[in-house]
């Protein structure tokens, strides 16, 4: 099975959206602040519903927040 890496622009988008705090994003998406921290640092890959909730909070598409890169590419 091919292994890949999930990158994200959550931190960038937070700052572009009125310097939203991690706690504000966590409250808007219904998760704890620790989960937002883990997502931002790439330690945790969110489920699809959570990825959509994060994208909708910023008013962008999921692929604008998360990018999947194959090791081969």
């Amino acid at each position, binding site marked *: 099975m091919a292994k890949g890496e999930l990158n994200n622009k959550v931190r960038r988008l937070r700052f572009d959206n009125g310097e939203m705090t*991690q*706690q504000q994003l*966590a*409250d808007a998406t*219904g*998760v*704890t*602040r*620790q*989960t937002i*921290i*883990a997502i931002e*640092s790439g*330690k*945790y890959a*969110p*489920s699809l519903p*959570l990825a959509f909730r994060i994208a909708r909070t910023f008013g962008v598409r999921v692929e604008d927040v998360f990018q999947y890169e194959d090791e081969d590419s």
Partner: protein
Amino acid sequence: MNKTQKSAIFCLVTFLFAVVVIAYPFISIFILKSWPESFFSRIWSMIAYFVFIAASIIFLRKKQSPNEPDFDERDDLIKKRAVIASFVSVWILLAGVTVIPRFVVGIKGSIPVWLLSFINLGVFLGALLVYSVAVLIQYGWRGKDGEG
């Protein structure tokens, strides 16, 4: 810290507290062969327990934000892995306490029945310790999860 982390810390503190509470009379009665002396009077012991429980409830109920959920999908995943680690540890501990008496008292030896209660309690506390440590390790050492 979120509720899952705080619960794990609470379990860890309870484990250490239980070890002290159980070890003191056990050592006193079965090794020193004398009845244990009380540190506090009955009233002060009750007050100490009450303060411990009240402080724990306040610690567990305090939220980072009013809208914070009790747990989310990542907490579920972390707890699931910790339960598996705890379950595996129960089997390892039970296998251990089944084999060790064979070497301590021999194959035809016997152990008192009351020792089974201590063994069961020990296995339960061991599983609790493994669960708490597994949760805290997954959140990252110092419980901060890379924040700050």
